[in-house]
């Protein structure tokens, strides 16, 4: 079945709310649904389980925690990922740590979902891809789907998980089509995926960057460079084994992440590989990220900031040149 990512997400919500009546959804205008991902849920499940909230991210975030602690599975839709900052106290000081602080008495099946990343001239306050600050908390899974199938599969798993998950859908990819397996398709949370087999260099590509990496790999194939692409699928925790295995095979690594360098998981992946697969490394690890700035509005500026296939190609070429093929 081919579907747009946004519809895959919609299906996941439908199926999980159908499957478990303790799943509820809260968020601003989740009824009208700006993105289309929550469309139809209010009609189907009614205003008890699908709640349009006021613009009050602070209480929304904490309410999600409280409702979950009291027995529900809560999906808290925060719209644009920058608004997790507005809800950050609840996410950081409560959601990420009540499990530890109560010695496991409280488990929190909460999914914070939001759309992140640039590409649409939404400018500085609507274009962050803030997986690193959430990952920094240590107690929240960060799911970074790159395609329709994973968006559906990861979200379904996230809703069934007893710990908080930040589900970060790529703003620029909602309309993209992709194949989705039939039936109850789920994807485990810490399960990186080798999206393309190759021998010369590993590219780890997060979220929307998978397509960029694929384009770069196509171009590089024409030059005779064989690229392996790994999609981490959750950027926290990382599926270390899959990433390390790929680097052990190729000996070279480029990490492509739409987040700012200082807010990327490129650093985490670099650190992981440099600690645990150092002897396999034949070349420096090259991060390809957005510069350390808020995303600018004007299309040429925005385009220049966010990694594109040519940036990835250049990084790979640099590696090959520095080490020979």
């Amino acid at each position, binding site marked *: 079945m081919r579907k747009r990512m946004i519809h895959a997400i919609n299906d996941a919500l439908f199926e999980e709310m159908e499957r478990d009546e303790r799943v509820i959804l809260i968020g*601003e*205008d989740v*009824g*009208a*649904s*700006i*993105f*289309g991902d929550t*469309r139809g849920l209010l009609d189907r499940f009614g205003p008890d389980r699908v709640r*349009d*909230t*006021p*613009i*009050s*991210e*602070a*209480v929304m975030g904490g309410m999600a925690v409280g409702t979950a602690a009291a027995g529900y599975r809560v999906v808290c839709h925060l719209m644009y990922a*920058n*608004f997790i900052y*507005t809800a950050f106290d609840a996410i950081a000081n409560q959601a990420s740590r009540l499990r530890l602080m109560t010695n496991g008495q409280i488990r929190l099946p909460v999914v914070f979902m939001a759309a992140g990343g640039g590409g*649409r*001239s*939404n*400018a*500085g*306050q*609507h274009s962050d891809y803030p997986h690193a600050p959430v990952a920094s908390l240590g107690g929240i899974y960060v799911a970074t789907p790159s395609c329709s199938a994973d968006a559906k599969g990861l979200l379904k798993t996230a809703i069934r998980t007893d710990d908080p998950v930040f589900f970060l859908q790529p703003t620029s990819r909602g309309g993209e089509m992709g194949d989705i397996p039939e039936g109850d398709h789920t994807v485990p949370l810490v399960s990186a995926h080798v999206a393309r087999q190759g021998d010369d260099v590993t590219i780890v590509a997060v979220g929307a960057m998978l397509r960029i990496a694929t384009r770069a790999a196509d171009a590089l194939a024409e030059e005779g460079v064989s690229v392996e692409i790994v999609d981490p699928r959750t950027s926290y925790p990382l599926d270390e084994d899959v990433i390390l295995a790929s680097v052990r095979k190729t000996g070279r690594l480029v990490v492509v992440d739409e987040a700012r360098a200082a807010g990327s998981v490129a650093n985490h992946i670099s650190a992981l590989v440099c600690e645990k697969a150092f002897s396999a490394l034949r070349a420096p690890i090259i991060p390809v990220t957005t*510069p*350390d*700035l808020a995303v*600018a*509005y*004007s*299309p*040429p*500026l925005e385009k*220049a*900031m966010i990694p594109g296939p040519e940036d990835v190609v250049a990084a790979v070429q640099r590696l090959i040149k520095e080490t020979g093929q």
Partner: protein
Amino acid sequence: MISNTRAAGSLDLLRMMLTIRKAEERLASDFKAGMLPGPVHLYIGQEAVATGVCAGLDDRDWITSTHRGHGHFLAKGGDPKAMFAEIYGRSTGICGGFGGSMHVADVSKGILGANGIVGGGVALATGAALAAQLDGENRVGVCFFGDGAAAQGVLGEALNIAALWKLPLILVCENNGFSEFSPSSNVIAGDIYRRAEPYGVPSVRIDGNDLDAVLEASETALDRARNGGGGTLIEALTYRIHGHVEGEQAFLKTPYRADEEIERWRGEDPIERYARRLVDQGEMASGKFAELEEDIGRMIRDAADSVADDPYPEIGNLERHRLGAE
């Protein structure tokens, strides 16, 4: 440009409302024509609020604004050309193309910027009001925000501090009945203006489509603020004639408001109401309005056209905003 002073005459105020209206109509058609790279939220129908409040301000007073910020920008003296260029993403834009529609700012005019975070301007204006108080030069900080934004907790925090410190802060809530696609009554309990009462901050609800009412309420608030009397919350009832965001029909499955409602509010158009009042009271000749409309329409058309093909910003400019770059 029309400059905004307390002494602004009626015709200047009418001109300002028309300037905002024409600018936004132009943006609406630009959007349809695919000329705008990002989203735009239009202010059409709400012009009396920005115009009336800013009439009493000068460049040294501070305002903060919202995602629906073109009206505030223009009313506070922002340059239409620089605004268009910004929204077109050009290097000649007031923010060099870095900000776009949701971030138009001109600090030299006291415009600390539109803001893409709903409620984001509240704390900034509170800070500006603190600066104004420290300056001791009778400036004020003004925050425009929506009914939807009234649900953000930061409003209560600001009211509390404004009351405690007697800050010269004017909170102007433009209640246009909707928070995106949610009618206010779904997301706002009770009357917004009353939320100031427990803090002891004076507040008032007014007809935001009546420029005279806006002028009166803001003059009272300004007098209070400039004379050490502290803050005020003004709730101005109004309506946005356009959608929440241009192009919303493309993604909304069902309408969220009735055509009759929109029509009814068109009948309350703040510009027409004010023009009619001026004519009725003999302050304006009856043919003058059409003439003004045409003049301002031309001025806006020229302003927009003159920057529509300006160059995009140089990519190297990005480096200017890195930490460490001076």
